[in-house]
């Protein structure tokens, strides 16, 4: 068996980058075909292929790290850089939607009544469910930090409990937000207010779901003894992502819900 004389990870050839690229092709072209020819087959194939690719690619990373020992300190450093750069790109993604919101709300046009919220829009009370949502996400930030300290201290049961609580708080936020969406007196079609509100909060909600899923995978891995008190980067990456989701909500709450009402 050949042994490497360096600490870096030379990955085995993998089909997942190709299948992932094709999945992106199928989803985008599928969207166009759905719009013009009313057939959802291509888009559905794309979605299924995306899920299969994500499952197998990340499964392989877990195998390479936890079972094959490839995630040495230099490799882990690279993974840390990668996650930080990815979250930074997501920050820029949200920055765009905040730009759009402030562009329209700082100088409301005569068509809107020259005011913000625009004439006819009944905004949500920021001190009702949105405030509860803020408390829920802040609490989940505390519980995920509790989980981290529990992992570092080798407290298995506490880690599982605090991580599970974090995920439940994430689900609670999503449920509350879904209810708010259903009960809201305005829709996405209600001018620029509706567009900025639902696109910004909608993408945030999607990120809460992604973050909750990431944390749930970490919970399963923790139960299966994958993490050690010194080496648990998958969990750290999930926790970073979760804090990012929390911070985006705080900006949304202050800008759109509170100042914007």
């Amino acid at each position, binding site marked *: 068996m050949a042994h490497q004389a360096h600490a870096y990870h030379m990955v*085995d050839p*993998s089909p997942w980058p*190709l299948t992932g690229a*094709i999945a992106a092709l199928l989803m985008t072209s599928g969207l166009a*075909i759905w719009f013009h*020819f009313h057939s959802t087959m291509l888009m559905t*194939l794309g979605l299924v292929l995306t899920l299969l690719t994500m499952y*197998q690619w990340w499964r392989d990373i877990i195998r390479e790290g936890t079972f094959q020992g490839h995630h040495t300190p230099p490799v882990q450093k690279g993974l840390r850089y990668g996650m930080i750069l990815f979250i930074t790109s997501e920050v820029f993604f949200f920055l765009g939607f905040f730009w759009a919101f402030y562009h329209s709300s700082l100088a409301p046009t005569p068509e809107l009544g020259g005011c913000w919220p625009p004439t006819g829009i009944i905004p949500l009370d920021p001190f009702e469910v949105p405030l509860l949502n803020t408390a829920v996400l802040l609490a989940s930030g505390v519980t995920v930090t509790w989980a981290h300290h529990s992992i570092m201290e080798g407290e298995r049961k506490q880690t*599982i409990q605090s991580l599970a609580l974090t995920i439940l708080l994430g689900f609670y936020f999503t449920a509350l937000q879904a209810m708010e969406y259903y009960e809201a007196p305005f829709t996405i079609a209600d001018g620029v207010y509706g567009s900025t509100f639902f696109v910004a909060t909608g993408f945030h909600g999607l990120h809460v779901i992604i973050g909750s899923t990431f944390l749930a995978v970490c919970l399963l891995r923790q139960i299966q003894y*994958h993490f050690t008190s010194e080496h648990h980067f998958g969990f750290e990456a999930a926790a970073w992502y979760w804090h990012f989701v929390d911070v985006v909500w705080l900006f949304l709450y202050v800008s759109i819900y509170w100042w914007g009402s």
Partner: protein
Amino acid sequence: MKLWLFQSVPRLASRAFNTTVRQMKNKVPDRQKVFLEDNGLPVHIKGGSTDALLYRLTMTITIAGTGFSCYWLLVACMPKSKA
């Protein structure tokens, strides 16, 4: 009423996972043995026959999807016949 229901969710959902957690054995050393075996298999196939099945399913969808994508591209390129 609805607000009360949602506020009671955290209280209702606070059951511990104790039974599952207590019975769980650490299978990581066994998995390490499987994936460190010197059989020349790439990591995406190394886990067993389920791996190969899932890979074949994924690749089938990839190739079929590419084919369908090309078909629809040709359809989209064709001028609409005046009936």
